[in-house]
């Protein structure tokens, strides 16, 4: 394996409290040295990282890779390529595949496909319940031994409080979180967008914010009672942020994530009836958006995760209420973090980076998320000033369902190193 020398980059590694110009030497895939002025030898593959930012490889703790079952939307190969294009060296894939990840066979299949693909590392999430039906627990112990890093019925909220309670208790012995998609299904049964002034104007059925808040509250109460670990997925409402903030003060084992679209877009945009804006949870109000940003600032929201949800053009080119929910996010997450959070001075770069590196790795107890001597090198290098326009046709992802087409973005990922191997060079995937 070639020795790699990254020269003169601004190394930002929140996990080792590092933010300075330095060189990094990677030998045999392992981080050997981090210091100034490492002398370049002719045999090294040198990367000029001047004016670039060097960070631990990003970790997306909420991705839908769609394989097995919906390979027309995304595969592990295309999804992990898209991940690398966006700077992610690890993705955590959700259990709602078909068949779902409620069986060790599926876990093994995913690991094998990811290894064959050779791009980002894939960490599967196991199902909470068999068949994601919310009726009886999946064989979580078996799944854990096969390599899952969390359990979740994402997409299908666990309605039965008894099942949720037992999942929180049972996972305690493995110290893995239950990732909860918080939604009261009775309160949002027919809804297709946030309930508010815009849904009233458009005559579209609303999904009230309280449908999320009620489940966030229930899950916090159950986590507190069972001492289990709950991770609240894709937080979208102000009141959820408040509940999580208060719970953290009481030392409840709760962590939380939001997705870039919840700190960027609001429900008013739905008046275009663009089905790419149909997501679950739905885009909320301006007030919710501000509260999400506050939550990111004060640490209530630990993680930024994409909730990358690929859908084909055919599925999305229909009436608004007939379209499936979700948008893709792997290849625009950094652009939105830089333009919406850094440029607007909501977060510092180290703090933002911690939410896609250190924090997800600590919550899931996975390797990476830090640049550490002697550890395998998962490293991302990006140019924070590079300006580009979002063109979904250039995406590596198989699906193009994004409402950000034509948006001006900042920050291009230049290099991605996975386990010491360069998989993205000058912004291009190396085949």
């Amino acid at each position, binding site marked *: 394996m070639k020795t790699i020398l990254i020269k003169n980059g601004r190394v930002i590694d929140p996990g080792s409290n590092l933010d300075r110009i330095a060189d990094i030497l990677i030998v045999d895939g392992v981080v050997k040295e981090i210091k100034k002025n490492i002398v370049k030898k002719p045999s090294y593959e040198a990367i000029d990282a001047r004016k670039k930012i060097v960070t631990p490889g990003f970790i997306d703790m909420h991705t839908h890779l769609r394989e097995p079952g919906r390979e027309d939307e995304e595969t592990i190969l295309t999804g992990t390529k898209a991940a690398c294009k966006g700077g992610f060296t690890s993705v955590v894939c959700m259990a709602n595949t078909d068949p779902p990840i409620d069986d060790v066979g599926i876990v093994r299949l995913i690991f094998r496909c990811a290894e064959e693909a050779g791009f980002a590392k894939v960490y599967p999430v196991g199902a909470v319940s068999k068949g994601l039906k919310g009726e009886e627990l999946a064989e979580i112990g078996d799944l854990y031994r096969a390599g899952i890093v969390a359990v979740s019925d994402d997409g299908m909220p666990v309605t039965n409080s008894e099942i949720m309670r037992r999942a929180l208790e049972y996972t305690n012995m493995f110290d893995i979180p239950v990732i909860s998609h918080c939604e009261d299904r009775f309160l949002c049964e027919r809804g297709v967008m946030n309930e508010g002034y815009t849904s009233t104007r458009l*005559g579209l059925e609303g999904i009230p914010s309280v449908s999320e808040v009620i489940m966030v509250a229930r899950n916090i109460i159950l986590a507190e009672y069972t001492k289990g670990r709950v991770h609240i997925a894709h937080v979208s409402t102000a009141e959820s942020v408040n509940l999580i903030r208060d719970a953290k003060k009481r030392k409840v084992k709760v962590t939380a994530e939001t997705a870039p679209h919840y700190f960027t877009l609001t429900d008013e945009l739905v008046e275009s009836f663009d089905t790419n804006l149909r997501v679950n949870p739905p885009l909320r109000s301006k007030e919710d958006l501000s509260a999400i940003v506050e939550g990111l600032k004060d640490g209530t929201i630990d993680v930024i995760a994409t909730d990358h949800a690929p859908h084909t053009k055919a599925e999305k080119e229909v*009436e608004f*209420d007939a379209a499936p929910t979700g948008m893709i996010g792997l290849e625009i997450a950094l652009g939105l973090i830089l333009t919406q959070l850094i440029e607007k001075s909501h977060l510092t770069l180290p703090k933002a980076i911690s939410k896609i590196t250190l924090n997800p790795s600590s919550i899931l107890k996975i390797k990476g998320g830090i640049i550490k001597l002697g550890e395998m090198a998962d490293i991302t290098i990006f140019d924070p000033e590079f300006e580009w326009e979002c063109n979904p046709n250039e995406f590596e992802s198989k699906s193009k369902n994004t409402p950000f087409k034509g948006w001006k973005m900042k920050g291009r990922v230049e290099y991605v190193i996975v386990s010491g191997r360069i998989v993205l060079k000058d912004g291009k995937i190396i085949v």
Partner: protein
Amino acid sequence: MRKKLHRKDLLGLEDISAEEIELILNTAVSLKEISERPIKKVPTLRGKTIVNLFLEPSTRTSSSFDLAAKRLSADTVTVSSSSSSILKGETLLDTARNLEAMRIDAAVVRHSSAGAAHFLAQRLKASVINAGDGSHEHPTQGLLDMLTIREKLKRLENINVLIVGDIAHSRVARSNIFGLKKMGANVSICAPPTFIPYYIERLGVKIFYNLNEALPHADVINVLRIQLERQGKELFPSIREYKELYRITKDRLQLAKSDVLIMHPGPINRGVELDPDVADGISSVILEQVTNGLAIRMAILYLLITHK
């Protein structure tokens, strides 16, 4: 006064100006007379093709649009959900593309999804006229209601219009509110809270829960059809209770002004939201609405197609 509608489509009354509404109403007034002639036809739209795409059941709106087109000498085709390829799984997109390939001049669309007319308008070169999209808008209904009120009361400004019924799921209510507010009318709504969507007051309407309190102010009462399939779910307990609380009866009308107008977009559930003796009584202008509907649709087709 302006003479032209500078737009390709009519999708709703929310994004249309008072001046445009005025133009449509005035055009309808001048076209109304055609339907009174022994030979009810003018050659204005000869050689033009209009498709009526009715993907949700409709009698009056569909036949009204069809007659309107025929009185202007346009050729029409009516495609209904039961006869169309939508049943075979064809998407709205493909239906639209096929129609476009037949070089139509306008498509009139009725669909159960909000935004369906916008979807077509973004993809067709032909004019798209929204004949009702889900609970969103039904602009020609709003226009014909305004024409009827203006005809009877000679103005729209400062008229008090009361809309009674399931506001949340009514495209008629939305188009009436958007249109009437633009023309300077005062709009109140009356329904149980489960029928009133949040933030509706931001559209400038006054909310009543008690019908008896709402009636005395009204110059016009627009009674919405109650959707029987919603009863007993969660929005209201029973038809019986709804009738007790909100049915417009002769007795209740004693509380209203003596010259109040009673309107209904049809089809009426007789004895549910409206008693027969009120529907057929002296205050009712329900059949005038139908006559005006034809004139409004003639005006829309004329303005959109000839001025392209």
